[in-house]
């Protein structure tokens, strides 16, 4: 499972969404995620992948988050 698929799975579980409705180009606001939801997603992602992810307001889309996680994995 790649990073995007992991994020989509976690979002689908926590926000009761259909995993097929989640696309990389979607912004957090498209998905109706506020800062609280994003913080929750990141903590779950860290547990799942075993990496520390530092987030800030420059992250706007799922693709941004995927890129950040993959960079932090290196």
């Amino acid at each position, binding site marked *: 499972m790649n990073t995007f698929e992991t994020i989509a799975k976690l979002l689908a579980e926590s926000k009761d969404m259909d995993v097929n409705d989640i696309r990389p180009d979607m912004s957090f606001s498209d998905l109706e995620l506020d800062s*609280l939801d994003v913080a929750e997603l*990141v903590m779950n992602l860290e547990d799942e992948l075993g990496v520390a992810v*530092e987030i*800030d307001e420059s992250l706007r889309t799922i693709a941004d988050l995927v890129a950040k996680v993959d960079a932090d994995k290196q």
Partner: protein
Amino acid sequence: MMNSVLVQELGLTYPIFQGGMAWVSDAALAAAVSNAGGLGIISAMNLDAEYLRGQIQKCRTLTDKPFGVNVMLMSPHVQEVAQVCAQEAPAVVTTGAGLPNQYMKPWLEAGIRVIPVVPSTAMAKLVERAGAYAVIAEGGESGGHVGDLSTITLVPQVVDAVSIPVIAAGGIADGRGAAVAFMLGAVGVQCGTVFLCAEECTVHDNYKQKVLAARDIDTIVTGKRLGHAVRSIRNPFTKRYAKQEYNPQCTDDELEALGVGALRKAAVEGDLDNGCFLAGQAAAMVHAIRPAKEIIETMFTQAEQLLKGAPAWVK
């Protein structure tokens, strides 16, 4: 006297912060609370850098005690306000309505203790990692921006999630609430609503009267649809807003426009029909306009008595 890391390390007499309330928490109120031995906090709200700089400088003329600044992260001026904080270096910066991590480095370099308000354990962990000195775990009983969890469930979970100090907020207006906070694992409390009725609070008198008249069921949460829920006292404004919030014909932009300027109308003009009177559920526990010093001393005299009496419950 209360024994707390906030007393030992922040130079307070009482482990209490006065919450940063938009259009309410100005230099006069912050200085009064700091002079009374708590931590007064100036709200940067959604105004610009010069307003904040002026308030910080005014506060320094009114007190030689430590005080803080609250940065509202949804403010359109948040970048410049964050810079003013780093330049002026108040003892403490608290943050609300978001994740402050991207602004924290310069504050920490300036020697400021950064204490974000958090509504969840995930947020508490993220700010701890970024160098927060403590967090304020604020339950949904509070006024203004609210999360879903209540204080009694949020505080112990945050205490378990992080290893930095936790300050409890939401629903605390007397010594009973303060005593509970310590039992939940907090090292202090933050109160907003009770200070709305401080003598030194410069908010319009209609606002104070609204708080004094509030009953237990008189607050309402609106704005969930736009992703920023706030608690305020019911009035014609909240009735209109709540009706539109559940009206599918009303667009998000129209709903947003309905709220513009409502806080100022309440706090500055005392407009009972069109103002949004932010207050927590503890409004009904506020019965008099008193000096900040009396509010704090009464609260901690009661808290100390209750905590000293706690062994009576154990056989």
